[in-house]
């Protein structure tokens, strides 16, 4: 929430700076832009840059770092996506050859199907369980207990991801795993199996990690959204005779659409990018039934030395992520504006 608020004033401010003549704000007394004849303007700008050199010097460390570690690798990835490249001596231009090869790569195509399944499942989960948990915590009348629940559902976030995955590995473990032990207790021992090693079920086992999905970022984001709803609005709905259920669907949900939109973006980006979970849990196996594009990119680069091909996969993932983010921003409704009501 903080950021939405924080983004607002700075954007507004950015606009107002352009309108206000440069001499007005804070430090500016000495650096008024020369507004004389056009040929003087260039000189004035240069003089202005020189005069403000302190600013550029202070920004230098930040920009040096991002140019070396962010801009250069990104440009290099896009550039090398049209090369056959082993990262060292072999570098041959092959146009769209890598992209054509991607379409004919059965492992990659299988991994794309897995990615779509994982992303859709993750979306379905993130739009229901945490939303419900957030709404329930919001509806508690006892605010002290509501705070306690909130803290409680944050704690799992500070357990290192790899420890959480280690615990899930022990839940799915073949012989003494928690899930199998539980099934035996329940008299269902015959369906016990090595879950992560099962060709049909491994992907579902991965999807189920994190069950019941209420502790985490999404719950916090929804809760923050609900808490930002002005209470007059909720009171008004109640006075108008809206029951809890009706109020939830017709007042609260439209007012947290921005949060829902955010969760959709975060979930999609997360699904596209995250392959460490798969890597640690199954490493794409058994066979390649749980392969995802990110892991396949990693393997092509690190095991097979096909750096160009890996860059092409990265470029494709980048393009798809950008497109989906754009579509989401463009077509998913934001929160209903309540200021005008």
């Amino acid at each position, binding site marked *: 929430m903080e950021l939405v608020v924080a983004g607002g004033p700075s954007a507004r401010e950015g606009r107002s700076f352009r309108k206000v003549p440069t001499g007005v704000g*804070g430090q500016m007394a000495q650096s008024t832009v020369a507004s004389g004849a056009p040929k003087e303007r260039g000189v004035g700008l240069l003089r202005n840059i020189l005069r403000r050199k302190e600013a550029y010097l202070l*920004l230098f460390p930040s920009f040096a770092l991002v140019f070396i570690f962010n801009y250069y690798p990104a440009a290099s990835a896009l550039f090398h996506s049209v090369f056959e490249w082993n990262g060292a001596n072999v570098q041959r231009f092959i146009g769209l050859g890598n992209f054509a090869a991607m379409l004919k790569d059965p492992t990659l195509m299988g991994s794309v199907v897995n990615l779509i399944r994982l992303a859709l499942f993750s979306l379905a989960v993130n739009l229901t369980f945490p939303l419900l948990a957030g709404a329930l915590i919001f509806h508690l009348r006892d605010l002290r207990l509501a705070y306690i629940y909130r803290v409680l559902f944050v704690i799992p976030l500070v357990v290192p991801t790899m420890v959480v995955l280690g615990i899930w590995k022990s839940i799915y473990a073949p012989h003494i795993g928690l899930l199998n032990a539980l099934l035996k207790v329940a008299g269902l021992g015959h369906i016990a199996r090595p879950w992560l090693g099962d060709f049909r079920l491994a992907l579902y086992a991965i999807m189920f990690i994190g069950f019941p999905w209420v502790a985490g970022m999404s719950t916090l984001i929804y809760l923050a959204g609900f808490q930002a709803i002005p209470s007059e609005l909720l009171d008004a709905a109640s006075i108008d005779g809206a029951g809890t259920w009706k109020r939830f669907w017709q007042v609260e949900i439209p007012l947290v659409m921005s949060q829902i939109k955010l969760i959709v973006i*975060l979930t999609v980006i997360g699904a596209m990018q995250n392959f460490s979970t798969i*890597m640690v849990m199954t490493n794409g196996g058994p066979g390649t039934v749980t392969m995802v594009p990110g892991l396949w990119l990693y393997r092509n680069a690190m095991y097979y030395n096909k750096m160009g091909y890996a860059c092409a996969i990265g470029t494709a993932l980048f393009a798809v992520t950008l497109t989906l983010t754009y579509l989401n921003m463009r077509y998913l409704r934001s929160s209903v504006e309540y200021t005008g009501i």
Partner: protein
Amino acid sequence: MSKTLKHDLPIHVFLIFAAILTFYPFFFMAMTSFKATPDFQHNFWGLPQWIQLSNYSDAWMRIRGYVVNSLVVSTTSAAGVLCIGSISAFVFARFHFPGREVLFLMLLALLMIPGILTLVPAFLLVKNLGLMNTYGALILPYIAGGQIFAIFIMRSFFASLPEELFESARIDGAHTFHLYSKICLPLSKPILVTIAIMNILSTWNDYIWPLVTIADGRLWTVSVGIVSFGSQYMGTESWGPMYAGYVLASLPLIVLFIFTMRYFIAGLTSGAIKA
């Protein structure tokens, strides 16, 4: 029964059920971490028959290096992000100079570039710079990447500080550095803490980058080390030491959480808007 409790009761039932499902695996981990192997084999679900503290000393011997490495890497990176990021944010917020908006957008645009795109060239870069198997391979890219979002947040915060404060200090003859260190930073403590925590959390959890840049097991961070550590026990039935290792690997972040809970929750909620 009070009216509040009557209204809340069905909600409590649901939330407590969800909390039990969420926390049982963690509880099982903590409980089993104190069990000796035979106790674990014959008494899978029950509480430990006796407390096997040697699980912890065994696990600690094996993972303490990873914890130390992570502490060094994560705190140095967070300090770097705060240092470099706050200076840039200060410049963007309180200076006026040609190209300010363009430069700022150049930083902001990087938020759209996914790590997966830059992974391979960044790996080759670090290799060519001779940084492989050094802390620098982690710290430098962590500062470079971490500062972007930090600058974005800090800039709006610094810009919202009242201009009069700076103006009066300037009249008193204060130098730029003085404005930054004596006015800007002290007023921004909560946001600085939030950014530090978010950074520590994300670098502590990073797995792929240390995996590709650090081959020397002695320099592994907790994320990489604990996976390797856990996999050595997975096939065996001595889960006590394994879980003890997991608990020890989690403790630093949990301690951090206890001391900074307020900032943590605010930070996580605002940090989510990264995309």
